[in-house]
């Protein structure tokens, strides 16, 4: 089952819509609440990243019987050094974004922590593609 959500750069009040919709679906599927929590946290962080840094983006979620894959594509500044961005505490967020309580440099590390697979591709000046994959049962990992 596939879902698509639009993300708008700078609109923090709407970040969290995709994660809340996905949460409702996973709950209906009786996925282990701990796994739901991890998926939802990772997706929310990813949504916030797009909203905080990019101009616009989309979330594509594909839910199968044993897994959820999430694809976030954005048009934005891109990430020059992905290795650096993965470090806890590293952030390029603007002062305005930090003032809203975001931009602590925990986004990417938190995503990595909460999904089974994470891949990031980015082109500076064009945008970033984030892929996340989580299995519903620990045995499939």
């Amino acid at each position, binding site marked *: *089952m596939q879902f698509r959500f639009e993300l708008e750069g700078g609109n923090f009040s709407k*970040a*969290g819509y995709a994660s809340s919709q996905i949460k409702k679906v996973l709950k209906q599927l009786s996925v282990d*609440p701990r796994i739901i929590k991890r998926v939802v946290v990772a997706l*929310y962080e990813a949504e916030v990243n797009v909203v905080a840094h990019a101009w616009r983006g989309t979330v594509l979620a594909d839910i199968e*019987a044993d897994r959820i894959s999430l694809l976030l594509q954005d048009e934005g500044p891109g990430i020059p050094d992905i290795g650096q961005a993965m470090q806890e505490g590293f952030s390029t967020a603007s002062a305005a974004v930090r003032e809203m309580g975001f931009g602590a440099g925990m986004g990417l590390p938190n995503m990595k922590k909460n999904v089974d697979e994470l891949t990031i591709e980015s082109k500076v000046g064009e945008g970033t593609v984030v892929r996340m994959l989580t299995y519903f049962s620990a045995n499939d990992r």
Partner: protein
Amino acid sequence: MEETKFYHALKIDNDRCVGCTHCMTKCPTGAIRIREGKASIRKGWCVDCGECLKACPTEAIYVEQDDFQKIFDYKARVVLVPTVFIGQFSKYTTEEEIFSALYELGFTHVFQVEFTADMIHREMLRQMEQAEEKPVISSFCPAIVRLIQVRFPALVDNILLVKPPVNATATYYHKVLEEDGFSSEEIGIFYVTPCAAKIASLKGAEGYSSTIKGVINMDTLYNKVYHILKNRPKDFVPECVLPPSLTKKEMRWSQTGGEAKHFSGRCLAIDEIHNVIEFLERMESTTEVRNVDFLELRACDRSCAGGVLAVANRFLTAERVMKRSMKRDKAPLIYSDRLEALSYLKQHITIRPLQPNPKLRYEGNIEEVLKKMEQVRKLMCYLPGIDCGACGSPNCQALAEDIVRHEAQFSDCVFMQRNMEKHGKLDKEHAFRLIEKTWGKDRLNKDCYKKGAKYEGQ
């Protein structure tokens, strides 16, 4: 329909139910459907919050209660009065007047529900300290406990396992009376409830607990007491034994913020069930709600003052309780007397671990459920999204889910009927029969006696 795990106090009077959409659209768990002109409640989804009762224009939804005469089966007839009951009366009615009327009605003992609040508070603090996961959630409101079991099963372990005041006080006072020489069979403790959820939780699936023998609806008792007060001569001086008075904290315990105020860290008090749902949804799906330590969640607006069975306006009740509780002693009286009952309560103040009872829309394994969810999404391409409720389900989404569960048909939607008629797939007579199936026979006939019509009430 799914098995019933809970006792439910909300009932529908089919003679009064005229078949409208008020209750169905208000239900926070989407548990109500209209079939054959009458509302019906899906028991497994209902949390007894009472929103349907508040919304019903014909008083067709009621709260089942015990026969008042049942109190006379007992030698010690105890009425457990919550402070919101006192708040039903204006400041010109003294507590002595109210309590004396309760004795006049046949009770032998009057005791106040919030008397054990300080003990409960201590136990909550103790459990909170040991809690692995924050925020901890108060177990005060039974509708909230059920809501979490049904809609937020992952949060069940966050609920503190402490008896709510009515249960704790019943445990305590039962022991006091036993010490006074009454046998357990002679003691009849009756609770005056402001809401349906408390009845439902006290009654449970297996009947009442051993300490509480029955529940009296607050509106019923209010009428009885008010009748006595009104018929007393002007110079009447009430004389009765007063129950130990409550402190400010105890009196305000059931008010919004009454608990949250007494915990340290980040504490939030949220009342009204839709507000609670919105907050818990947010807590589940964003990381915005961080480092919250304590949640006081209440199903009714203004907490118990806004209970469905309360008579007075909830804002006035809340204000009266606040006023009456000013200038009170600070030290709770529970620690100064009846120490054996106190230590008994200390040992019996916790409740058993709560089980999740998730509301699942579809049966089957994950593949089957996924398939059903896909079917719902396909149906939603056709349904108009007007959410009128004319099909007998609360909204288009719910109808689509009902169809997939084989509990409704696509042609139940009045707009789809038009569409089908236009394309020659449904004849007029059949369409009308479909409407009658949902709304009952003759429901669309002219009726000048209905609410708002010209002979209403005649």
